[in-house]
């Protein structure tokens, strides 16, 4: 491919050079003509600029010398003589020679280059005697500011950055948020926006950037790497970068910096003001704000720094020796006990509410706070960074690509994402399987990849990130993508679909999750050992997660696993239908609306409501679960986000936020769809936890909400 560009460049350069010859000859008759000088300069300049791009470095360097002198003649600091026209013509001929010689000029040509450069310099020296002249050194310093900066030792340092973009940055097409994103890619970063300069709406100029940021960043990259993020707007912005301290020193400090110290460091307040403020025993920040010594934003920004330093420090302690190993059963017991306590606490607060004794209510509220802290704490003990398992996958990819004669690499992202330990353990096998599949079916052989114009080596990108109460784990390859025709043919052969079925692409893709499905023509050692994607899906389902699949023929496949952070305790919305209680996981609830029975629109037998301008299907849980009795005149609809769509569930009453300890339903109910577990309420009643995704799938298949329900509910 590069050779093709080279040829084009050569043709263009030839054209420019023959043009240059004409210009130089004309210059002999009209010495000093500014038009001609400019044209000559532009020709040399263009050759210089492109030469380096296509492997003609020698031309680039040589043309640079010639260009320098032409520039000085053009600007009048050097005079143009007949000698120069001769010299320039020789140079022009020499560039042609270099062009023909390609990358490997022989010694004779190199010698000629040396002579000509010598002659050019001599000409410059001779001419500049008149203006007392220093010869102008090319200042290449800034040119490469964006090339990779060598890591400044790799030692992690904490920096404080104050970044105030010029008001006009939007007008030059700059995306400021993208810059902050780039900043956070350099290391552990916390940003605080200053919005105090934004006026009221009617005075607001929406095209002006009025926000500024303070950022604290712990990064192993040097200060240049941080400053380079803002390279395009540094002239119009105020950017100050300050080293706070080496992370290593931070570790030795007993505790992170006090708010006062930080404000003092930044030069916002004086020592005396702080001492005075400290004397009155209130929170320092509040006092300083009240006295108008600092603004609220300044304090909040400093607090962000304090928080961040604390985190950096904790992380260092984490990686240090200050950890103990505990048998995981003990941890599980602890979680169970905390679960019991949470349940008991719910009963206590309900009882206290009934008795109306101020003393008891006080205790109950205090207890409530402590329990939720205890719960969060216990949960965090079980959280592990997912990165520890990533290494295992790297090995899988390496070994397997050797075995299959393919060339592939694993790139990982978000290794620090934390996830419940049991979830991580259960994720291992499905992930290995997905990665194997990507390698086996997705990534093409090197020859095929080259033929398709892709780099020889394929890439499998494994990334993890938090998204609300979920973790998204993505396996993306740049391989061939799903072969939908092959999938359809195979599904027909296996009797998974019936002949003549017209399926949209999305549903064809889903077929690979069907039990007993495998499209590999020959059974390799890797895939096709009887464990299909159906097992992967089942395992992810059992974790309460979902699998999303996206594939583009020729460009690769992306599989996204959406996994709940933890399995043991969830935040739920407690609702009531007839006399029964149900819990909807709060993480999937989008909103609640009231509905009167006359507001319902029926369309093709589907029940539809308008929610925020969108038409949504809904299903009455009363009908779905065969609850007795009549629905009230006004019911509530809980709108939930399921998989890729929204759906409403009609309930009699929404009771409220409820901390739910998830209990499994037991073997007998294993095949019940639409329910993921149960929980015990404060008064001892059992509430069922809705499996929103499954339920919405079942509803989709059966839009009337009644017929076919049994089949969907009992999926045996």
């Amino acid at each position, binding site marked *: 491919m590069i050779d093709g560009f080279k040829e084009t460049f050569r043709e263009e350069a030839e054209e420019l050079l023959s043009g240059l010859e004409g210009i130089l000859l004309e210059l002999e008759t009209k010495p000093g003509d500014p038009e001609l000088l400019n044209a000559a300069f532009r020709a040399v300049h263009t050759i210089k600029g492109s030469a380096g791009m296509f492997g003609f470095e020698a031309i680039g360097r040589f043309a640079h010398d010639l260009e320098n002198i032409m520039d000085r003649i053009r600007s009048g600091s050097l005079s143009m003589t007949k000698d120069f026209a001769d010299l320039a013509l020789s140079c022009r001929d020499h560039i042609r020679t270099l062009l023909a010689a390609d990358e490997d000029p022989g010694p004779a040509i190199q010698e000629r280059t040396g002579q000509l450069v010598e002659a050019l310099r001599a000409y410059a020296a001779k001419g500049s005697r008149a203006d007392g002249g220093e010869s102008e050194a090319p200042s290449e310093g800034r040119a490469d500011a964006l090339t990779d900066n060598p890591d400044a030792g790799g030692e992690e340092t904490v920096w404080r950055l104050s970044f105030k973009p010029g008001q006009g940055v939007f007008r030059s*097409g700059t995306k400021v948020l993208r810059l902050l994103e780039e900043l956070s890619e350099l290391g552990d970063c916390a940003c605080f926006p200053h919005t105090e300069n934004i006026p009221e709406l009617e005075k607001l100029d929406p095209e002006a950037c009025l926000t500024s940021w303070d950022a604290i960043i712990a990064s192993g990259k040097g200060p240049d790497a941080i400053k380079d993020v803002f390279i395009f707007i540094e002239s119009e912005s105020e950017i100050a970068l300050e080293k706070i301290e080496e992370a290593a020193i931070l570790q030795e400090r007993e505790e992170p910096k006090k708010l006062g110290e930080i404000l003092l460091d930044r030069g916002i307040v004086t020592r005396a003001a702080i001492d005075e403020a400290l004397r009155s025993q209130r929170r320092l920040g509040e006092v300083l704000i009240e006295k108008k010594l600092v603004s609220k934003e300044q304090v909040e920004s400093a607090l962000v720094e304090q928080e961040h330093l604390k985190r950096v420090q904790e992380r260092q302690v984490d990686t240090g020796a200050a950890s103990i190993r505990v048998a995981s059963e003990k941890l599980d017991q602890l979680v169970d006990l905390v679960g019991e306590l949470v349940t008991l606490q719910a009963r206590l607060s309900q009882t206290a509410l009934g008795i109306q004794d101020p003393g008891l209510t006080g205790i109950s509220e205090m207890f409530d706070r402590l329990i939720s802290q205890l719960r969060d704490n216990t949960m965090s003990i079980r959280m592990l960074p997912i990165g520890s398992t990533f290494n295992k996958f790297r090995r899988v990819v390496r070994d397997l690509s050797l075995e299959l004669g393919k060339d592939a690499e694993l790139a990982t992202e978000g290794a620090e994402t934390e996830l419940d330990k049991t979830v991580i353990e259960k994720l291992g096998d499905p992930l290995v399987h997905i990665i194997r599949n990507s390698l086996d079916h997705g990534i093409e052989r090197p020859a095929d990849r080259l033929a398709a114009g892709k780099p020889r080596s394929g890439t499998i990108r494994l990334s993890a990130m938090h998204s609300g109460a979920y973790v998204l784990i993505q396996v993306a390859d740049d391989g061939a993508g799903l072969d939908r025709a092959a999938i359809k043919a195979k599904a027909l052969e296996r009797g998974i679909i019936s002949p003549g079925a017209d399926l949209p692409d999305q549903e064809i893709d889903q077929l690979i999750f069907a039990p007993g499905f495998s499209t590999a023509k020959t059974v390799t050692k890797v895939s096709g050992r009887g464990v299909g994607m159906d097992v992967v899906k089942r395992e992810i389902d059992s974790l309460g997660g979902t699998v999303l699949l996206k594939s583009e023929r020729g460009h690769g496949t992306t599989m996204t696993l959406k996994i709940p952070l933890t399995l043991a305790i969830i935040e739920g919305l407690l609702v009531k239908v007839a006399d029964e209680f149900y819990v909807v996981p709060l993480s999937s609830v989008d909103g609640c609306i009231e509905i009167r029975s006359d507001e319902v629109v029926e369309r093709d037998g589907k029940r539809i409501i308008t929610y925020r301008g969108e038409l949504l299907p809904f299903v009455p849980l009363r009908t779905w679960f065969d609850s007795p009795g009549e629905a009230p005149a006004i019911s509530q609809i809980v709108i939930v986000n399921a998989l890729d769509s929204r759906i409403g569930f009609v309930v009699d009453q929404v009771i409220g936020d409820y901390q739910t300890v998830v209990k499994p339903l037991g073997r007998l109910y294993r095949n019940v769809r639409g329910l993921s577990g149960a929980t015990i309420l404060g008064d001892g009643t059992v509430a069922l936890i809705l499996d929103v995704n499954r339920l919405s799938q079942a509803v989709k298949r059966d839009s009337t909400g009644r017929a076919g329900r049994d089949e969907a509910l009992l999926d045996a």
Partner: protein
Amino acid sequence: MAKRILIIDDSAAIRQSITYILNQEGYETIEAKDGQEALDMLPTLDAIDLIITDVNMPNLDGISFIRKARELVKYRFTPILVLTTESQGTKMNEGKEAGATGWIVKPFSADKLLGIVRKVAE
């Protein structure tokens, strides 16, 4: 959706190589051989995510192109990168004043080009 990038340079070699590098990474590209041609194209194009323009070009040079493009409502905030060989910064400043977002100094490697494109267009 793939990002669409308009490349303006009078050198076909430069256009082709930038196109090649960007297509490899899944960007969509459109080429114009000078500022005037690009300016004539602008109203008919929709959803351009980035413009990369050379400075020295016949008919309409890069700096004037940027000034004119910024006058069009549709391209007021579109990121524009200037291709420059000047390392002294004069063209960079001229470019910025005209409304460019940033610059790329020739010669550049594929990685450097992609790094800058990601920086302003993602």
